Structure formats: C-alpha cells, structure tokens
C-alpha cells in the first residue's frame, strides 16, 4: 500500500496513545486505606475472564480508531482488487513494454490502442503514487534500459511508440535482470505491458528456466503483468506470401499471393476491399471472406514492361489494428538458381542435377553444372546459389574458398564420398571428417527416428503437413565426426542430416547418398527434392536484389541506415526505421520490411502457462481491457474512515454500563 501523504504516517505511533493513557492512569492512582478488602478481592477474582477481555477489546478498538484515522489522513492508495504494491514503494520500477504490432490493436470507439492504454494506466499510477524511486523503460523495439524522468514522459517518448516488429519478452526480462544485477536495484517492481501473445512470450523457450533461476533468489523483485489478452473480433490482417514478376505475351505481370486472416469467432461473411498500390498506381479487388483465412493466389497486376524492379503494398481498410492492414513488398527479376555439383564420380551426379533443375517456380530459371574436386575454384561458384559437394572434404585453398562461400550466406550440402571411392577419406574441413561406411542388411534398413520440422531444410510445409522424412529407408550411411546441429537422426542415434552455422550462412552434412544402394532418398524423391530446393532458395535469397524481412529483426537492423522509400510514421525516429514496415533501398537492392509472420499468430497465453513461466516468482497478473476506467491504484481513505467509525461505535457499545439486574438494584 502506498500513500499520498506518507509523511503523516509519522503519527502512527499515536496508536499507542490509549496504552499510554492507560499506563499513566495506572500511575496516577490514589492510595486509599480500605477496610472492605474481602469484597475487593472477590471483585478482582470475578473480573478475570469476560470483563478483562471486554476491556482489552475496548483498548484495541481505541487503538484501531487512531490507526485508521492516521492511515486515512495519509491518503492510502491501493488497487481495488489486486492489493497493488503491498509493502511500500519500490526503489526501482522497470517497465517492459511490448511495442509489437499486435499491441496496436485498438478500441475503435475510443481510438486507444492496447499499448497506449497500458502506458496511460502506468502514467496514472506513477502520478497518483508519486514514486520517488527510479523508473526504467525497456521496450521491445530497442531492448535497452532507459531511465524515465517523469511519468508524463511515458506517453511521449519515441521509445514507447508503436512499431511493426515483434516482441521477445524473454529477452526483455534478461535485459531487466542484467539491469538489476548491474545496478543493485534493491526492491524492484517489474511491470510487463503486453497482450500475452504466445509468439512474443515463447513459453517453450529455454530462457524461461534460466530467468526463473536468475530471479528466483531475488525476493525483492516483483512482477506485474499488465495484460490485454482480448483480441478484437473484427480485425483483419493482410500478408503477402509471395511476389513473382513474370513476362507473358510481351506484358509484364506481377503475381501476388495474398493471405487475409481474422480471429476465431468472427465467422460472418465479410466483404473486404483490398487495395494494391504499385509504384504509385492503385487498384482495388474486393474479397468475400467466409472463413477465418482467405488465400488469394496469383493475383496478377500488370506493371510497366520496362520496370524490372519496384515496390508496393497491399492495404486493407482501417479496422481494429492499423498495423496489420498494410503489407509492403518489393519485386524484381528473380536470379537464376544455379547449382554446382562437385563429385568424385561424375556418373553419379545425375540425381542432383535433375533435382536441382526441376523448377519449383516456372518464372525462375534453374541450372546446374557438374564438376570434379580437381577443378579448383570454379568460376561458376560466384553465381552458384548452392554447392552440392559429394567428394572427400576439401583442403587448402579450396577449403578456404568454400568457407568464404558459406559465410556469405549461401549453403553447401556435403554428401559422403562414394563407398567405392579409392581416395582418402581422412581429410577434414572445419572440424568435420567423414568416417567409415556402415551397411545395414537389405531387409533391415534404418529409418529416421526424429527430425526438426519447425525450421530449416526439413521444415513442415506451409499448410503444416510434415515432410515424409519418416518413410525414408537408409541402407548405408557414413559416420561423421564434428559438432553440429542435428536436423534428422536415424534409429540408433546416428545422424542423417546435420547443420553447421558459419557466418551468415550454414552448411549441411547428409550422411548417406541418394542412390538406391545407400537410401531411398532418390526413390521416394520428395524429401530429396524439397531439401535441395530449400537450400537453393536460401542461397538465391542472398543473390536477389529484392528481399522481404521482418521489421525489428537482426537483418533489418543491419540495413537501418538505408534510405526508406515508403513514408516513416510521424512519431518514429529515423534511426529506428528498422522497426517499422516500409521499403528500404540501397543501390539496386530493395528490401521490404513488414511485421514478422509471428505477429499474425493469435494464440494467447493461458493463465496456466503464465503460472508456469513465473513459477517460484512473485507476480500478479492484471487483465485489463482497452478503455477500462479503473485505475491501477485508487485512494482508499474512505475505507479507513469507515473502519475508524466502526471501531468507535464498537468501543462505545463496549463501554456502555452493563444492564442492571434486579439483584443489582
């Protein structure tokens, strides 16, 4: 409980006044010579019990009345339902602000967003309780601690403005912990303003355990979750999934894959006018939404035949969240997806060549060339989107060049040398070394026991369906020495596919060959094909002149000094342009920044999940709604006045002389 006039609490010792008066009265006693001691002693004996209890109660009521009076004049503040900040004001208050795009969801009538509502509540709280300790802001945009001078500043700081990025709440808490540890903050209140989206809180992230362990011993730290978990049912978001520039019959067309989403519970039919703006030219297509998700595939827009690149956006009419109504995109000629296959047995290179040149997208050119390890530093490497290396690991200059290639962001997929290869397999590259081949009986091939379906080459499809990795059969595999991130593991624990990050990119090691003698990769085909083309797409992305990244991501921050073609929000700092949706350009290269895809996930943390994340920590959750007029803290002096009145009435009743009985009269 906090007080507006805490200085008046100095008077709290007055609670002892009735005791003092009682003791003084006892000291002020007269001395009387007395004869009728027998009655006096009888009376003293009889007064034990209820009479004595009555007098203690009278004393307690008097003390309570004085205490309540002192508390009332000190103007106590408390949350009506939460027992806010029980135990006094903290030395430091840290505000963790979720500035993600989803926090911009607003009450359409009031025009107030969740973020603004949370900031307003906090500012009101700090103004009303007049906190004297430090107030520190850590926002999801910058994830750095900034001291706040006054509560009013919360509403005006650029660091509290809306962004189009996501929020990484565990990272914010880590920053808060580092701040607490570095500044020895003493009693600390950590306020987390968020809409509790699972995509921002990442409840399964391993950092939560570390945070619980870090904050656990710090009893002086308390967490307050100022949450806005409600989702506006009328909100519709738009995402551009893919943009392709194709030339058909002398006309250049832009093909857009657009997805509209709306939350569950809004099942009524909805007509959405979708506006396309490309290089300043506008067009509108009206979409009839019957389901929660609508995919507009290959919506074609004719563009200037001479324009080989450009940018634009797709926009929805204003609704509950303005930050998911516009989606920027950039387009340009897709680079040729060229694969270099290095093999010590050129006859066996055919499967890779066929897979790499079979087009995924007809608008993109695919090519492949086969070379032997002896052709050192092939000039084709410069334009290659992917290198498939099925030979002993490179050494010397070739190894260095291959490492440089990977560090630029383009992948290399290593396959083991053929079992029949006569060359030495003892060479190593970056700590990796091929071992010996293990052969399984024909009737007991190995199957994939587990694989990572959440990301990378074996990720589930866009529809969520897993790749048929589990159906693969492996008859021969080569052991691999070296530490990497397993993407697929065979029964028995041997690795089938491993990833090793290097610089901006990564290389992959597949421990079997696609041939029928080694595995069913080629026979089943799907996994092999998808794996190669995903690796190709990764490499091609680094070669393309256009790209599409999430706002606020590390890639976006790297180009935050690029000029922005689209307008920046008026309250945004130009140095923070990486946090906002838009299109940035440097030279021929165009990058469209948008809210990350995770921001369109509508899952909200359950109370149980919150409880698990904060298990062992002192936390309170306040579920608020936009436009709620209840203050986080309000004056409760009336309650103390009522308490005082009740105490006085009780004291008066207890002081009434006992009703005389007939015998007494």
């Amino acid at each position, binding site marked *: 409980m906090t007080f507006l006039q805490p200085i008046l609490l100095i008077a709290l010792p007055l609670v002892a006044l009735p005791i003092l008066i009682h003791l003084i009265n006892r000291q002020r006693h007269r001395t009387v*010579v007395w*004869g*009728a*001691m*027998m009655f006096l002693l009888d*009376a003293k004996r009889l007064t034990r019990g209820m*009479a004595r209890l009555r007098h203690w109660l009278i004393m307690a009521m008097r003390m309570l009345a004085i205490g309540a009076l002192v508390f009332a004049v000190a103007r106590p503040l408390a949350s009506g339902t939460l027992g806010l900040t029980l135990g006094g004001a903290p030395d430091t208050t840290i505000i963790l602000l979720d500035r993600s795009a989803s926090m911009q969801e607003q009450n359409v009538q009031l025009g107030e967003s969740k973020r603004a509502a949370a900031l307003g509540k906090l500012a009101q709280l700090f103004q009303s309780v007049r906190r004297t300790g430090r107030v520190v802001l850590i926002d999801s945009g910058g994830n750095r601690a900034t001291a706040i001078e006054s509560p009013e500043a919360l509403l005006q700081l650029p660091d509290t403005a809306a962004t189009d990025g996501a929020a990484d709440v565990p990272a914010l808490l880590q920053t808060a912990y580092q701040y607490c540890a570095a500044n020895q903050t003493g009693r600390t209140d950590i306020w987390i303003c968020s809409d509790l989206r699972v995509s921002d809180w990442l409840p399964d992230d391993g950092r939560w355990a570390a945070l619980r362990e870090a904050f656990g011993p710090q009893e002086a730290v308390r967490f307050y979750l100022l949450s806005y978990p409600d989702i506006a049912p009328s909100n519709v978001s738009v995402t551009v999934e893919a943009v392709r520039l194709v030339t058909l019959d002398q006309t250049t067309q832009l093909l857009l894959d657009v997805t509209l989403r709306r939350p569950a519970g809004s099942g009524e039919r909805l007509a959405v006018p979708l506006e396309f703006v490309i290089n300043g030219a506008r067009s509108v297509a009206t979409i009839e939404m019957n389901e929660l998700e609508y995919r507009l595939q290959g919506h074609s827009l004719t563009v200037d035949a001479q324009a080989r690149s450009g940018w634009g956006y797709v926009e929805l009419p204003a609704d509950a969240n303005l930050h998911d109504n516009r989606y920027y995109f950039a387009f340009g000629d897709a680079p040729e997806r060229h694969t270099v296959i290095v093999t010590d047995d050129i006859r066996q290179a055919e499967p890779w060549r066929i897979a790499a040149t079979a087009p995924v997208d007809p608008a993109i050119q695919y090519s492949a060339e086969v070379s032997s390890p002896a052709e050192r530093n092939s000039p084709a490497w410069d334009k290659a989107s992917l290198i498939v290396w099925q030979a002993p690991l490179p050494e010397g200059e070739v190894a260095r060049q291959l490492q440089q290639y990977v560090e630029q962001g383009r992948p290399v997929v290593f396959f083991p040398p053929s079992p029949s290869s006569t060359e030495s397999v003892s060479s190593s590259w970056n700590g990796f070394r091929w071992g010996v081949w293990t052969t399984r009986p024909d009737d007991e091939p190995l199957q994939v026991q587990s694989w990572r379906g959440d990301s990378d080459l074996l990720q589930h499809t866009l529809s969520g369906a897993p790749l048929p990795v589990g159906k693969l059969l492996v008859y021969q595999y080569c052991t691999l020495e070296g530490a990497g991130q397993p993407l697929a593991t065979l029964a028995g624990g041997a690795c089938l596919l491993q990833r090793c990050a290097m610089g901006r990119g990564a290389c992959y090691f597949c421990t079997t060959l696609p041939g029928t003698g080694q595995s069913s990769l080629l026979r089943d085909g799907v996994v092999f094909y998808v794996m190669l083309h995903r690796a190709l797409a990764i490499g091609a992305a680094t070669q393309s002149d256009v790209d599409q990244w999430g706002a606020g991501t590390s890639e976006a921050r790297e180009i935050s000094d690029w000029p922005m073609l689209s307008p920046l929000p008026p309250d945004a700092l130009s140095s923070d342009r990486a946090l906002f949706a838009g299109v940035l350009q440097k030279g021929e290269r165009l990058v469209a920044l948008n809210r990350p895809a995770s921001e369109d996930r509508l899952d909200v943390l359950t109370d149980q999940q919150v409880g698990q994340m904060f298990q062992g920590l002192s936390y309170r959750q306040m579920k608020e709604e936009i436009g709620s007029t209840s203050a986080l803290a309000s004056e409760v002096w009336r309650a103390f006045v009522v308490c005082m009145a009740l105490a006085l009435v009780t004291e008066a009743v207890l002081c009434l002389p006992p009703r005389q009985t007939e015998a007494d009269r």
Partner: protein
Amino acid sequence: MSEHVHRDYLDPGVLARLSALPLDARFPMLGNVSGRHRSPIRGSSLEFSEYRKYVPGDDTRRLDWRAYGRSDRFFIKEFEADTNLRLCLIVDTSGSMQVRGGDLTKLDYARRLAGTLAYLAARQGDAVGLYCAGESFTREIPPKRNAAHLRHVLDQIGSMQATGTTGLAQILHEAAERVRQRALIIIISDLFVPPGELRSGFQHLRFRKHDVAVFHLWEQRELDFAFDRPIRFLDLEGGPPVLADPTVIARQYHRALQEYLRELSQAVRDSEIDYHRVGIEEPYDDVLARFLLARTRGR
C-alpha cells in the same frame, strides 16, 4: 493512667438527652440484685403476675386474704421479679476499624456508641463489661456495677487502638462461653467476616440466652465504591495492597457486597439478633435513640 485518657467521645448533651430512655433487654435477665429488668424468677415487684394455690411451705405473707374471703380457698398472689442487667460491650478493634468517614473513624464511632451505652447502663444500675476484639480478646473487663468499674470501662474505651486482623467469629464463640449468665451483648463492628462464620457465633450466643444486638458500622464509600480512577487500596489489616481500577471491578464489587449483606441479613434474622446497620457519617445519638426506643417499645 485513667487521668490521661480523654473522654471526648462522651457528649454530656447526648447523655442528658438519652438518659430519659431506658436501656431494656428484650428477654428476661438473671441479675443478682433488684433492677428494672424482667427476671424469669417470680419476685416482689409491683407487677402482678398470677394466682396459684397455696401449698405448704409457701410464705403465708403472700396469701391473698380477700380471695380467701370470696372463695374460702387459699391462693398465693405472685408478682414479677425485677433484676439488674449485665451489659457486655464487644468492640471490634481490628485494623479495618481505622477507616475514616467524615471526621470520625469507625473506632471513634464505636467509642461513642460503647461509651454512651456503658454510661446509660451504669446509670440505671446495670453491670457493664467490655471486651475488645482484635485477632483475639485484647481486653476483657467482666461486667460489674460500681462507679469505679464504670470509670475503668470508660478509660479502656478511650484507649482502644485499631490494629491487626479480625478474629471476630472466634471471639463470639469465646464470649458465649465466658459470659455465663444471661446478658445483653452489644457487638460494635464492621463485621468484615464471612457471614457463615458470624452465623455460628450469633447462634452460640443465643444458645446461651443472651440478648444480642449488633451495630454494623459502614463507611459510605464502602457501600458506593464510586471511584473514577485506579486506586491503590491499602489493607488496614496487614494484607498486601491491591491496585485496581474501580471502573472495571465496580459491578463485581457490588455483587459481592450484595451477596454478603443478603447472607448476613439471613443470619441475623435466623438468630434473632437486634441488628442495626449504621453509617458512621450518621449522628451517633440518633442511632442510639432509635436503638433505645425500639427496645422500649418491645418491652
């Protein structure tokens, strides 16, 4: 020693006024000389009692010749015998008698009552004795009826000191044994003794055919117990002092007092005790006048 004792407790005016009222016993007394009190023995007073038939041996001087003339039979004419009274004054001299109400302590008040009664009894020819009752008999003067004895009694009354605890209940039993002949026993005390113990003492005295009267002395504060702040009560009989808040215990005090008075009333009623509750703020001559008048009417 007697020359040094002041008899300021005797007021000549009061004595003169009360002299007109006799001190009578409620029951017949057995005296050794003729007096103004009834005796259970037939005597030669002027008060006719009854006729009875003459039996040989009767004093022929008591024959009623007129009755013989009318009935030709011999009748003896009998008269009441009047005798003197033994007045035994038992005065409580325990520490609690130091309690002061107004100008007088209870002991002062007891002196006035006892001195005046002793004087009045001696003046009408009765024997007067004095027993001072502390924890036991501190002084014991058997009743006698000469003037020198009265002076001695008055001297002792004047020199009484209130001190120590009270042993009144036991003293009543002892008095019942020591005063062998019927007597008027007047007890002057605050009676701070459990009524049950007093009851047996009273009954013992009544068993000995004594006429017992009690002056129960009270100081008004003892009845009211109207204090408004904590008081340290000093026990005059030597007990430890008691610190108490009268506002807290007043109700229980009055309850204990009422219970005591109820039991005491029952005891004196059962024992036919002439009981007088006396506030020491009252004029003692009024108290004595009421006492004497009541006895005169009861004769």
